[in-house]
């Protein structure tokens, strides 16, 4: 708790805000990659306190938001099977597929359970040998090591009734897609601190060099975020497209080698569909071929289910930083957290949900 109050210290934050204001001389567009950072920016009102030259745009780093409709639809079909105990992190339960969500499957009798760790799903498999336990393994590089460990644990114990729906996504290919878009307006990045804690930041040097943008691995508390913004502005003002880590207490250049090793032993890079963006080459992880026995999509033969994304909302453009949530005509009217039309309204980390929860614009 000591750490928490330190990194929320109003005096430190105000000093950083003043320094940012003294440093900035012209408009800059900076993207925070991670939904956790978006949430923190909204919760503490950081965007209201920054000088007007700085525009923050919200990146694609909410795992719940970018999980494709297709994956949800496949998960729903599996969760409805009577022999299945379907397990998931809490906030995936409310994410609508094309017609349904996991809560509704549960209300119709599906055995859907919230777990806090994928290893609890392995425990369920051990305790229920006559049932099939499926874990919905979504997320960025951050959650992958735990999900990989679950597969390794099941393999070690010889559990044949545990499997995962793997829909992992990777940050660097998404940044590459944003930067290579002809409509890109992002000039600097706050990289997602917890992704970097696992993966390190070597990959970002290639991107910074290729697109000549500064990239700053950044934490999640207000002081962390303001430090990241200050460093990004300093680099932008100096025309210096470097990678500089400001999340020193969590991130080493090589990340966490043990976590990377276990992930690499279980998953391999693949093309991946992103909700609201489309398929990006080499942007995800899937189970290695030799671990196909743990692949729930193969086990329950749901690979045939293909769902096209509806064209009703602008989530894709929001996730790429091209538009803000209130640019959408449906925002707050047709589309609310109670009845989300698109990915970014679904999770509390999604940019639209964060705007709806904490915002703004309609303070009369």
């Amino acid at each position, binding site marked *: 708790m000591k750490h928490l109050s330190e990194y929320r210290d109003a005096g430190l934050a105000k000093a950083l*805000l003043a320094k940012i204001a003294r440093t900035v001389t012209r408009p800059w567009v900076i993207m925070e990659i991670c939904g956790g950072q978006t949430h923190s920016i909204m919760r*503490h009102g950081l965007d209201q306190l920054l000088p007007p030259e700085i525009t923050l745009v919200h990146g694609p780093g909410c795992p719940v938001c970018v999980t494709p409709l297709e994956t949800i639809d496949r998960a729903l079909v599996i969760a409805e099977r009577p022999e299945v105990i379907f397990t998931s992190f809490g906030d995936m339960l409310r994410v609508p597929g094309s017609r349904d969500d996991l809560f509704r499957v549960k209300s119709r009798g599906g055995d859907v359970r919230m777990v806090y760790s994928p290893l609890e799903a392995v425990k369920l498999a051990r305790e229920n040998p006559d049932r099939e336990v499926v874990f919905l393994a*979504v997320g960025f590089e951050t959650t992958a090591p735990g999900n990989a460990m679950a597969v390794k644990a099941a393999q070690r114990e010889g559990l044949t009734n545990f499997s995962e729906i793997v829909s992992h996504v990777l940050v660097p290919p998404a940044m590459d897609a944003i930067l290579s878009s002809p409509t890109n307006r992002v000039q600097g990045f706050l990289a997602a601190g917890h992704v970097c804690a696992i993966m390190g930041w070597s990959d970002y040097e290639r991107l910074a060099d290729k697109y000549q943008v500064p990239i700053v691995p950044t934490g999640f508390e207000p002081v962390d975020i303001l430090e990241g913004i200050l460093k990004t502005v300093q680099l932008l003002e100096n025309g210096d497209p470097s990678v500089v880590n400001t999340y020193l207490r969590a991130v080493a250049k090589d990340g966490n080698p043990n976590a990377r090793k276990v992930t690499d032993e279980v998953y391999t890079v693949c093309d991946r569909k992103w909700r609201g963006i489309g398929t990006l080459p080499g942007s995800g992880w899937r189970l290695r071929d030799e671990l196909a026995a743990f692949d729930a999509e193969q086990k329950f033969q749901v690979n045939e289910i293909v769902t096209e994304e509806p064209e009703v909302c602008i989530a894709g453009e929001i996730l790429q930083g091209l538009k803000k949530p209130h640019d959408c005509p449906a925002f707050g009217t047709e589309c609310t957290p109670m009845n989300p039309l698109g990915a970014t309204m679904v999770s509390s980390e999604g940019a639209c949900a964060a705007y709806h929860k904490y915002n703004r614009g309609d*303070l009369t």
Partner: protein
Amino acid sequence: MSDPRPDFSDMSCPLPILDHDTIQLAHGAGGRLSADLIDKLILPRFSSYELDQLEDQAVLDLPAGKLAFSTDTFVVSPLFFPGGDIGDLAINGTVNDVAMSGAEVIALSVGLVLEEGLPMADLHRILCSMETAARTAGVRIVTGDTKVVGRGSCDGIFINTSGVGVVPTGLNLSAASLKPGDRILLSGTLADHGMAVMTVREGLSFRSTVSSDTAALNGLIRRMLDVCPEIRTLRDPTRGGAATTLNEFAAASQVGIKLDGDSLPVRPDVMGACEILGIDPLYVANEGKLIAGVPAEAAEAVLAAMKDHPLGKEAVVMGEVVSDHPGRVTLRTGLGAERIVDMPVGEQLPRIC
């Protein structure tokens, strides 16, 4: 000649087993087992003059004033959690709902729905904590009912409690009576109950020291009303947390409410659990806290009276009623920005990362 007729004088049907380790369907069938359960387990815990009459109803002598009447049903899982169980929760919850009107709480009813197979020891433990909670609150249990349902039809035990109280003449508390300038007072730390239950719930297996705040607040309220009978409104921020209660206040009175983000008391271990799970303490249930709307000139005296009571030691002024943004609750963050505190959509769900 011996009598050819067999002698039935000593014969009887085999008696059903009366001493069971678990609740049987027959405990709810109205026969001997039902009577046994009530006589041996329930009545000794809840004995009051009215209950002991064993009539179909309780007949109460009430002092003059308006009748306050409330009901609540308790379905918590797990049944036992750090700091309490479904039993004291069921007593305190209804005592608080009645007391928030300013009423002197007089009597409660208790309806028990028991699941076949519920361990007798668990039922006994729950009844004991109901007895203790009622005694602590100074409230009589005057009527009740017990039903048993088949295994799988309920989650161990469901408890309904209803309560009546009498609002003294002259008191007229209402969520619709807040006026700009009024102060919003909170009686203590936020989110203790919700996080205590969440941290022991199956699937979230991390250890913590978080403990429920379940408590009857009628004594605290009496102290507050003694100091200031003009208190505008009182409410206990249970499900949906303080954010929901404050939004209800703002909507009912058509005023804005501005919170001071720095003032909100949250225990460090509760804050830690909230941070780990990605949950905002403003949206988490409390079972032993109240939020009061108080005229500005009385705020200091009411706050002092609250701090003087064991259940209000950590009371704070959490915000102010304003004429801006009617129907909306805003929070001034520690850094000086302002954001909306909205109604929650549904249950708060732990975030992925």
